[in-house]
């Protein structure tokens, strides 16, 4: 839990404020477009072209390539939007969460009270 959004000072937390939202606007706009099946298909067909079309910068593109959800968060991605990207590439919420925590999915699930309630 070393990293955080310094304006807020809550460990392990990147508060989605206007500054971060502005930073990540291209990401979130791209992710939002993936609501439509035809756009998901276009993304899958050519990820690089799709990212360029939405104006992601190099850091953001790299985070998408690596499916690095923590980095994407730090760069202004908002989970409620990038869940659409995650679904497109086959990642689920708890997989994302485990990765953000730096744990395996199995280790993360062991920290839950009733892991059957998914």
């Amino acid at each position: 839990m070393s990293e955080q959004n310094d304006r807020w000072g809550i460990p392990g937390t990147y508060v989605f404020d206007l500054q971060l939202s502005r930073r990540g606007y291209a990401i979130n706009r791209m992710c939002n477009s993936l609501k439509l099946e035809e756009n998901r298909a276009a993304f899958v067909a050519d990820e690089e072209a799709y990212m360029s079309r939405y104006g992601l910068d190099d850091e953001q593109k790299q985070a998408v390539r690596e499916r690095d959800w923590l980095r994407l968060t730090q760069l202004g991605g908002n989970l409620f939007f990038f869940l659409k990207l995650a679904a497109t590439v086959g990642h689920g919420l708890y997989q994302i969460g485990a990765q953000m925590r730096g744990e395996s999915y199995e280790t993360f699930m062991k920290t839950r009270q009733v892991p059957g309630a998914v």
Partner: protein
Amino acid sequence: MATVVAGIGSSHVPSIGRAYDQKKQNDPAWKPLFDGYEPVKRWLAEEVKADVVILVYNDHGTEFFLDRYPTFALGVADSYRVADEGYGRRPLPDFPGHADLSVHLANQLLADEFDLTLCQEMELDHGFLTAMPLLWSHDDDDWPVKVVPLLVNVIQHPLPSGKRCYKLGQALRRAIESFPEDLRVAVVGTGGLSHQLNGERFGFINEEWDRQWLRDIQDKPEALAELSHQEVMTAAGAEGGEVIMWLVMRGALTPQVREVHQFYYAPMTTGISVLALENT
């Protein structure tokens, strides 16, 4: 005159919707949850008999994008569709609106200096959907109540303050009580309790804080309304900050309330609760 006949706080979690649709009511992991809502559902059906529900919720990247993000948005339509959040539309009937009440609320709340965005079209995601079938029985194509959706920005800071939300609830009550028709109105505040879906602290839950919230929202709502977002998010998780929506519901009730039912369960990543209150 319309009156507020129930105030309900209820979490909204997508997995609850999936469990409901997949009929997991008797699945060991889910039974406690469905059993926990049952007494409230019965109370609403047998005693409260509301005509309309004003449901306070937030959208989760479904209908509202960051190009134009409202602080408060009120539905003023005759009906509201169930949104597709990317996994297909849930098999729930669309919701009949109570447009006359919506228009009245819009006029009153604007006159009371709340700067609403007014929506003639609005599809509803799990922020709205989760609580509805747990609280009201529906058949294949209708609901026993009409609805008025009231959206709050809890996604992109600056959010409205807890105090502003509480004041909105108080104004809502004045507006409801100035509606000429006899209507029984339930107000539902959704969201929370503690959870975080963000950063290295993903999965954070604070059960102690949640249980305190369930007491204080009854007896000390004004103290809760004074908390800063930073205080709430530190204690309840970044996404737990959405509990401010309960303050809208609480503001619409009388200063003293009676608890009808309370339930709490934290199986996975969210402190899930339902709290039913009535005016004294």
